[in-house]
C-alpha cells in the first residue's frame, strides 16, 4: 500500500486578477520506505506539491492521503498535530531558530509530545548522533557551517520519528562536499531507518542518490525509474 496518494489534485493560485493553475488533475503514489527525487524546472510546482503532502497547503480540489489519513480534509489544528507526528520538513534555507542552540532547535518537535525531559534528551542526542553532530549540542546556528546547520535541520526533522521526511532543495545552498554529506545522510536514513524520503532538487547528482526520480513539468509528471530498479 502506498504511503502517499495524490488523487485528481488541482491547485490554483489567484494573485490579483491573475489565476495560476499549478496542477490540473494530478495523481501519483509514493511507496512506504521509498526515496524519491522530485525534479523539474522552476515554477513547475515542486514546492507546491511538497506543501500539499505536508498539509501546509490545501488542494483546490482532489485528495491527498498520507498513511491512510486524508490530509486534505483535516482542520488546521488537526493538521498541525498530525504534522508534528508524521512529517519532518527541511528547507533550502536552513530555518533553524537563531536564538536556540542546536540541541534546543532539535527539541522543538518534541515539545509537542508528552515525552519527559529525560526521554526528550535521549531522542535529541540520538538524532544529533545520527547526523554526526553530537559534539555540537550547545552551538548556536551562527556558530555552525552551512552543512552543519542543514544536518541539524535534518535531525530536527527526524527527531519525532516521522515516517515521512520532505526536503525542499536541501542542498541548494551547500558546497559540493556538504551536499555529499547531506545526501549520504539521507540515503542512510532511508536504508537504515526506513524513512520515506521525498527530496526536491535541481541537482542531477543529488537526484542520482534517489531510487526513483519524478520529473514535473507544467504540473504533470514525466516519470523515469532508476536503473537500480523499482522502489523497495
Amino acid at each position, binding site marked *: 500500500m502506498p504511503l502517499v496518494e495524490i488523487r485528481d489534485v488541482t491547485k490554483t493560485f489567484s494573485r490579483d486578477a491573475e489565476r495560476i493553475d499549478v496542477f490540473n488533475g494530478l495523481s501519483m503514489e509514493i511507496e512506504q520506505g521509498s526515496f524519491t527525487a522530485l525534479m523539474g524546472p522552476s515554477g513547475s510546482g515542486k514546492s507546491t506539491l511538497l*506543501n500539499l503532502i*505536508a498539509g*501546509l*497547503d490545501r488542494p483546490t480540489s482532489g485528495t491527498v492521503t498520507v498513511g491512510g489519513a486524508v490530509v486534505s480534509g483535516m482542520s*488546521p*489544528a488537526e493538521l*498541525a*498535530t*498530525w*504534522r*508534528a*507526528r508524521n*512529517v519532518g*520538513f527541511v*528547507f*533550502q*534555507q536552513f*530555518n533553524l*531558530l537563531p*536564538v*536556540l542552540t542546536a540541541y*534546543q532547535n532539535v*527539541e*522543538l*518537535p518534541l*515539545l*509537542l509530545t508528552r515525552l519527559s*525531559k529525560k526521554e526528550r534528551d535521549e531522542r535529541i542526542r540520538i538524532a544529533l548522533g545520527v547526523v554526526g553532530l553530537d559534539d555540537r549540542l550547545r552551538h548556536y546556528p551562527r556558530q555552525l557551517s552551512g552543512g552543519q546547520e542543514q544536518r541539524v535541520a535534518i535531525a*530536527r526533522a527526524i527527531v519525532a520519528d516521522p515516517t515521512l521526511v520532505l526536503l525542499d532543495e536541501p542542498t541548494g545552498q551547500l558546497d559540493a562536499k556538504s551536499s555529499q554529506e547531506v545526501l549520504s545522510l539521507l540515503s542512510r536514513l532511508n536504508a537504515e531507518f526506513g524513512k520515506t524520503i521525498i527530496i526536491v532538487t535541481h541537482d542531477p547528482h543529488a537526484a542520482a542518490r534517489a531510487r526513483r526520480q519524478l520529473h514535473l513539468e507544467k504540473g504533470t509528471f514525466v516519470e523515469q525509474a532508476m536503473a537500480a530498479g523499482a522502489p523497495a
Partner: protein
Amino acid sequence: MKFWTLLRANLGRHRRRTFLTIASVALALFLFASLRTVVTTLGAASRFGSARRLVATNATGIVFPLPIAYANRLAAIPGVERVSWANWFGGQYGDGKRFFANFAVDARSYLDIYPEMQVPADQKAAFLADRSGALIGNRLLDVFGWRVGQNVTLRGTIFPGDWTFTIRGVYTPADKAINDDAMMFHFAYLDEKTGRQGLAGWYIMEIDSAEHAPAIAKTVDDMFRNSTAPTKTGTEQAFNASFATMWGNVSLLMNTIGMAVVFAILLVTANAMMMSARERTRELAVLKTIGFTDRRLFGLVMAEAGIITVTGAVLGLGAAKLLYRATNFNAGGFLPGFDVTPATFLLGGAVALALMLASGIVPAARAARLPVVAALRNVE
C-alpha cells in the same frame, strides 16, 4: 513549563529592547501608582474628620482671629459637648526648607477632642504641666532627629522672634489621614510671649450627634452674625474637604496624566511586541511546519507580552510601595498617610493585564493567522 526555553530565548533576542520595554512598563506603573496614591490620599484626607466635630472660623477668612470669649458661649449651646481652640503659628525650624504644621492649642481640651492622637500617659502629663512644652508628631523624630526632652527653637513668621520649646511628648495618629508631622504647643505660651490677649484662630466643637451638625452650625453662625467677628461653621469633614476641593482639580489632572502615561507606554510596548513578532515571521512559519498549532503560537506570543508586562508591573508597583514606605514620603506634610493602597495595586494589576492584552493581541493573532506557505515564500 517546557516552552520556557523558547520564551526566554525570544525575550533575550534583543536584550536591550526587552529591558527597555520592561523598564517603560515599570515606569508607567510606578507613575500610575504614584499619581493614583496622590488621589487616594487626598480622598482619605477629605473624608477624614468626624462628622461629630464642627469647626468655626472667622467668616471673613481663615486668617482672621475670633475672640476667645466665644468659647464659653459656644460651650453653652445645647448639643455642644466640648469646645477647644487653636491658632496657626507658622514657625520655621533650621533653614525652614522642611515645612511642618505648628500651632498653638488649648492643650487639655484639644487632646480630649482628638482621641485619634495617641500620646503615652506620662508624656501627656509632662506636656500639660510644662507651659513651654511641645507635643510633636512621631514623624518629626525622624525628620529632624529630635528627642523627647530636647529644646528646639523655631523662628516665628507670623509672630516674629525665636521661640524655644521643650519637647514633652510624641503623638501617633490612629488615623492615617491625620498629619504625623505637626507640632502643638500651649496657647498660654503664645499669649504670654506676644502679650496678645483674647484671640483664637479657630474653634473646634464636639457635638452630641452628627445629625445635629447643620442645626448647631446654624445656631453658632446666627449667634455671632451681628458681632464684629461673624463665624462660619461646618463639620470638620467639610472643613477638610474645603482644602481638598482645592485639590479636586488636581485629582482630575492626576487621573488624566496617569491615563495618558499608561496609554503612551501601551503604544511603546505594543510597538515593541509587533516589531519582534514581525521580525520572526519566518520563524513562526517554521514552527507551524514543525506542528505548532495556531493556538499554541498565539499563546506563546501572548505569554511573551505577559512576561514583559507582568515583570514591569511587579517592578513598578513594588518600587512605588517600597520607596514610599522606606522614605516615609508625605510630600512635606501635605499628603499624610501617603501609601500605595491594595486597591491601587489591584487597579495597577488590571492596567498591566490590559497592557498585556492590548500589546499582545495584535501580534499574537497575526502569528496565529500567518499563512505558512506564503510566509515561507516571501523570504525566498
